[in-house]
């Protein structure tokens, strides 16, 4: 009753609004952000390698390396952030029961993303993609959505877990 009255008054006078902010719109969770960030990390490692293979690095080369490394750092941070939000906000008791290994998996993604920040070894990036793929598999399992693996249709062309949403 009281709420209806105030609601009507709000329509007439338009009271100020205070946000009760959420991280992301409610119930919208998708591991694809983390997967793209992990793939970006590998792609950036490949681009670093390309500069290295050119031979003598001039000032432009140093500038390019700086930029690539900075982007790699950002991609690794994005993997961590995206995985943490799904693990921290979406996963609850029923999902933990379905995927009891999720805590270890999430922790290993955190460690692996840090390794990728420290290293320019492609193998470390590939490991990160694989762990994030396993995370995506776990996520879609809790949603009851089957998955399949296919190479992403752009560099670095690594196998990626996709949800099969056709049915």
């Amino acid at each position: 009753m009281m709420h209806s009255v105030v609601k009507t008054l709000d329509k007439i006078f338009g009271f100020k609004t205070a946000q009760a902010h959420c991280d992301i719109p409610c119930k919208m969770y998708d591991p694809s952000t983390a997967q793209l960030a992990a793939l970006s990390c590998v792609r950036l490692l490949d681009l670093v390698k390309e500069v290295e293979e050119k031979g003598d690095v001039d000032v432009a080369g140093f500038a390019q390396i700086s930029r690539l490394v900075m982007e790699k750092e950002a991609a690794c941070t994005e993997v961590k952030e995206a995985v943490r939000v799904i693990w921290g906000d979406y996963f609850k008791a029923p999902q933990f029961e379905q995927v009891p290994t999720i805590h270890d998996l999430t922790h290993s993604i955190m460690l692996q993303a840090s390794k990728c920040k420290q290293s320019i070894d492609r193998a470390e990036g590939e490991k990160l993609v694989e762990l994030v793929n396993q995370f995506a598999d776990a996520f879609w399992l809790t949603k009851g959505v089957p998955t399949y693996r296919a190479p992403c249709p752009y560099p670095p062309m690594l196998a990626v877990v996709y949800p099969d949403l056709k049915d």
Partner: protein
Amino acid sequence: MLNLIKVQGDSMSPRLQNGDFVFTSRWHKKLKVGHLVVVDHALYGFIVKKVLHIAPDGQLWLGGESNKSMQSERIGWVSARRVIGKVIFCICSSKVYRN
């Protein structure tokens, strides 16, 4: 001074839902942990949050009540002078809540 403010978002659920209204007062006594406040945040504008910690210099550490809430780390420490008011009364679509 009293203000009537509309709540947008669900980070304070179940206590406050999207579309609820809150009365805030500037004439509050000392804020305590657990109080709901509306602050004018430098980045996020007007936000309604719960006081989680109070620093010795009076700065506030705020957070939501739902696990969907923006993390306190992103809100950061908020100066007491940014407090628009303490929530003293809520008009909820489902019930009336007094603070």
